């Protein structure tokens, strides 16, 4: 029990340190820590955070999904196309979520039936989804008429009582829900079992192939929602958007304590991982540092976070 709490506190401590360092370094700490800036950082985190919720499920199950950035672009374009051709925005949103789920099912089916490793399958899907997105969009950005979809991630929602954009609340609610599912339901515990030891899970009577497809499908639905959010932020479907987002999303999960060997990871950790990167980016900009500095810092933090995690794990086992 204590160990799991230490494991969860690790990334949180990292987040506090990042925020603190920039608050001390900046000549306008009031501005950096203002609610204004906090809202902006939270809105900016939504895309990576939503993606990271799905990615956490996949990584816990022992898989990986490199196609998430392309799926976001694809579903964003589909949302925009739907709205442009006169669908109600809610229908376009549902279509995007389902399309994301469909991509996930495809990934899962190919992984389980053709026995190709997830890294390769999703690498292929990265190209396919990106290509289809460009094809559907005729290699152009798809502009949409104004609907309530455009307001999902407006930094300052028109309805003042919301305080934060609807997209941020949605992300929080989904994070709590998926965290509950992972920790407290049979489905969730089976995902951990699958990632920890697939052979053992199968021996216990779990249909691992079906479970894998289900995990990729659930995560895909979340990626579809992420795509709709991305469309809302840019107010257009952009088939070239989120290029490389898969690396940010995987980094968020890994900083948050997820293990690429499977069986480990938490939604809370991944959310904190996403926030660490968003605060870093925001802080570096406020300090006026050039982009390459933030890329280097984020690179160092990814490696350091995982190295610390391993050190702590081996310390914990030797003192158990």
């Amino acid at each position, binding site marked *: 029990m204590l160990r799991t709490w230490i494991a969860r506190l690790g990334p949180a401590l990292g987040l506090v340190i990042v925020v603190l360092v920039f608050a001390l370094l900046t000549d306008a700490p009031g*501005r950096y820590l203002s609610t*204004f800036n906090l809202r*902006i950082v939270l*809105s900016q985190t939504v895309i990576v955070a939503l993606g990271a919720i799905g990615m956490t499920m996949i990584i816990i199950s022992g898989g990986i999904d490199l196609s998430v950035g392309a799926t976001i672009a694809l579903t964003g374009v589909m949302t925009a196309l739907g709205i442009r051709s006169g669908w109600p925005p809610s229908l376009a949103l549902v279509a995007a979520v389902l399309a994301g789920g469909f991509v996930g099912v495809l990934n899962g089916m190919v992984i389980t039936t053709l026995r190709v490793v997830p890294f390769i399958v999703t690498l292929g899907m990265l190209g396919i989804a990106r290509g289809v997105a460009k094809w559907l969009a005729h290699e152009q950005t798809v502009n949409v008429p104004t609907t309530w979809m455009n307001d999902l991630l407006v930094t*300052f929602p028109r309805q003042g009582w919301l305080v934060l954009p609807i997209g941020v609340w949605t992300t929080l609610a989904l994070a709590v829900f998926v965290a509950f599912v992972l920790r407290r339901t049979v489905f969730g515990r089976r995902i951990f079992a699958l990632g920890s030891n697939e052979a053992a899970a199968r021996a216990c009577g779990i249909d691992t192939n079906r479970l894998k497809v289900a995990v990729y499908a659930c995560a895909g639905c979340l990626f579809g929602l992420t795509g709709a959010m991305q469309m809302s932020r840019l107010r257009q479907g952009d088939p070239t*958007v989120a290029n490389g987002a898969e690396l940010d999303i995987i980094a968020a999960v890994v900083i948050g304590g997820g293990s690429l060997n499977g069986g480990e990871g938490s939604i809370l950790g991944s959310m904190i991982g996403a926030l660490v990167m968003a605060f870093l980016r925001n802080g570096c900009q*406020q300090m006026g540092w050039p*982009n390459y500095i*933030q890329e280097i810092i984020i690179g160092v933090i990814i490696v350091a976070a995982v190295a610390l995690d391993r050190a702590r794990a081996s310390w914990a086992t030797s003192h158990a």
Partner: protein
Amino acid sequence: MNQRRILIVTLMALVSCRDAPKSKALTIAVVPKGTTHEFWKAIHAGAVQAEQELNALGGDSVHVIWKGPLREDDREQQVQVVEGFTSQHVSGIVLAPLDSKALVRPVEEARAAGVPVLIMDSALESDAMVSYVATDNQKGGELAADRLGQLLNGKGNVLMLRLQEGSASTTAREDGFLKRLKDNYPGIRIVSSDQYAGVTRETAKKASENLLNRFGADLNGVFTPNETSTIGMLLALQDMGKAGKVRFVGFDASQIMVDAMRAHQLDGIAVQNPMRMGYLGVRTLVASLRRQPIERRIDTGVTMVTPEMLDLPATKDIIAPPIGKYLPGG
């Protein structure tokens, strides 16, 4: 206090910190579409030139921050940069929007938060900006069409490689080029005008190779609408041994293009004045912040440079702006 100092020293060891702006200073953030093109370096130099001149004139000091999107040419990343400067509450932002629509929301939010934005280089579909400082891009395209039309004596097969959808500046050049060719040179046939170069030399070269492979056999003229697409096309022409055999007009100037003009592999470039754009962008925004009258639309000029004009002193200042004077190591 001591801990704070240790932190600062540690980070200073990693990072060469900029001087913090003084309290009364005007902080102007300049946000380009990317940072690696020579075009953006010239804009940066112009912005620094304006900063130095304004500070030499006295009054409140002016501090220019230069920051491009983390991933070059990524709309979402540029949105984040603008949002970051808004929350930092800089005095004003000079922005070259990557997209005429995607940047509308952040620009309007910046204005609502009291941070005025001046748009340069590429249009924004909003009137939330202080002023629009840019090349008359359509005119640039028309100049290129005239040059190519004259070189070909009004007949032949011409290919145009577009840059990227959503980029207002290059789309205006492409449209200006096509319209002028159609209106004034009816004998010229456009064999392809719907392919995109993408934003890097690499993608432009690949697209060019594919197009030349398809249409190269009886091709007479080529037009490309910016630096990377022109260089990509040039490299493809050179690799295929077609450089110098096809009349080629490009856009913007960089050393490799000037060399190609001397080798008569490139027959003309429509040259903007990016340094003047960066300079006027900052000067105009500061003037507006100081409540001086400003123009809502400022044209920074475009010129057709031909190989014969290369050594004229007037040309030299445009094609090789004195970047190094303002940017150390630039």
